[in-house]
């Protein structure tokens, strides 16, 4: 288990009774990398992320996130990561500022540090104008930014984003990815693991893993995947990879 690796997992498996949600998955993510987890709904992406975040215990396998064991050191993992779920998980009856203050406080930021970080993230994500509005009343695209701001207010090394662009318009999505780049390439060198089913977004990632029905089908850079499957866009790559896997299964 290499310390330079932000995420490093071996044979991670999760079973719910007889149903296998995640089947012996292996991969590793370097610091500062933007890693994409692609797959249809129900492929096992969310379950995988939950295990990496330390809120779900794997049935077998092990790995580290931020250098801490996924099996035994879940609490330490939580300190070092940020998380944003599909639904943005913000309190709609709190103002944007109150949401940020709450999450910052929950991560143990001192008052002074909290004020600093709040200023930084609101400027960074352009939500300064919304600070005193009720989170429930702002448009979806801006809510997404607030979600990202809340997830990064404590400046985590690793950021887990579960379908962060669901239901958001293309312009907003592009802006969103720009923010991700800034986070990854900036001085913080954050590692970002994103799940998505928008296949064109895969192009933005450094490396991509394709999941299908609990299995990891392929893992490489977008360019390498296109070469391998002889396609020129990720959508075709994805469809082809799935079909191949299903044929193997039947055969």
């Amino acid at each position: 288990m290499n310390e330079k690796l932000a995420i490093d997992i071996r044979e991670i498996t999760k079973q719910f009774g007889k149903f296998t949600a995640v089947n012996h998955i292996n991969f590793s993510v370097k610091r500062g990398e933007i890693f994409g987890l692609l797959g249809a709904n129900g492929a096992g992406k969310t379950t995988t992320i939950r295990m990496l975040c330390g809120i779900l215990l794997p049935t077998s396998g092990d790995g580290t996130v931020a250098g801490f064991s996924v099996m035994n050191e879940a609490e330490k993992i939580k300190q070092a990561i940020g998380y944003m779920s599909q639904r943005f998980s913000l309190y709609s009856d709190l103002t944007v500022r109150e949401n940020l203050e709450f999450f910052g406080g929950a991560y143990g930021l001192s008052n002074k540090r909290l004020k600093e970080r709040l200023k930084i993230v609101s400027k960074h994500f352009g939500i300064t104008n919304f600070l005193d509005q009720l989170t429930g009343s702002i448009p979806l695209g801006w809510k997404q930014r607030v979600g990202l701001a809340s997830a990064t207010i404590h400046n985590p090394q690793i950021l887990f984003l579960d379908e962060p662009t669901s239901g958001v318009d293309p312009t907003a999505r592009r802006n969103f990815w720009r923010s991700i780049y800034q986070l990854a390439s900036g001085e913080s060198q954050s590692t970002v693991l994103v799940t998505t089913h928008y296949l064109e977004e895969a192009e933005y990632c450094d490396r991509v893993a394709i999941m299908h029905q609990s299995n990891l089908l392929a893992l490489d850079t977008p360019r390498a995947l296109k070469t391998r499957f002889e396609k020129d866009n990720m959508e075709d790559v994805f469809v082809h990879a799935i079909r191949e896997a299903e044929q193997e299964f039947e055969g």
Partner: protein
Amino acid sequence: MKARLLPLIKKEFIQIFRTKPMLGFIFVMPILQTLLMGYAVTTEVIHVPLVICDQDRSADSRHFIQQIEQTEYFDIIEITPEYEKIAPYFDNGDANAAVVIPPHFSRDVREFQTPTLQTIINGSNSNTALVAIGYLQGIVAKFGQHLQSELVNEMQYYGSGQPPVTIQAEDRVWYNPNFVNAYFMVPAIIGIILAFSTMILTAINIVREREVGTLEQLMVSPLKSHQIMIGKLVPFALLGFVEISIVMVAGKIYFNIPMRGSYWLLFFTSFLMLPTTLGLGLFVSTVTKTQQQSMFLAWFFLVFIILMSGFFFPIENMPQWLQYLSLLDPLRYYTDCLRGIFLKGAGLQPLLPQIIALGVYGVAIISFAGARFQKRLV
């Protein structure tokens, strides 16, 4: 670590105060309930509509009617000599009691024919029926004494031999000499309100966060599950204390409820009581998936513990198996403490068994619910 807990509690309060209906609920409802219970909840029986069928129409029957008129227990709605008129009143629901004085009653008494005075009661409401019968028996007994003295005067009737000796009993009613209903109800209302808000609001609140998704966000944060639990329960506990105070003030203003015991003991027992209902609310949140379900289940528990607490209905009157069941009810012990402290000025000694029970239940319930809460998070 406290630095992390405070933002959680602060957030809860912001949310609570921002929901106007919730506020109304928390602050206005206790007052309304206090008033309602204090005034309405009574098993006292008064103004029972009564029909008198006077077939004798003598001076004696008139005296009897007068005696009834003088009490506030019965309202005479008709005096008629016709027996058939009684039934329609009962069927309509316009009368619940009737007295029939047979013809020649006065004459028969003086001739020692022992006539029969008939009373009719609407048995539908068995509780009030029994009480009404009791009242009538009392009035009739007094009427009997009146007739006795009449006969003594008229006929020099002394009966035979030396009159027997009856007991002279002096009644002393402690704690509530006038049997004021509010004294009985209002201290116990504190328990009801506490149970209601802490249990139901807690359960719904947690399930709501789960439904919306913010609970997951809390799980991912470094907040430990016991911190999340405390962060959720503390605001409602504090609100509980606020409600206790509101009820006390309302009780004092409207009903002049006495407070004969120690405030410290009151707050101590309340402090012991809170973990039990908060724990139950927490438990409900771990076994239900939607707000609707949590509401139903929380309500179910609530109704049960209110019923078994001796708030309305005396536990001693219940069948044995129910009485045993009530031993599991923390509200029962708390209600005992409340009435003991407010009305009887009871100190630690007489209430020790209740206090111990509360403590034990509190620890047990919170531990159990907390363990379930923890498991579900992972």
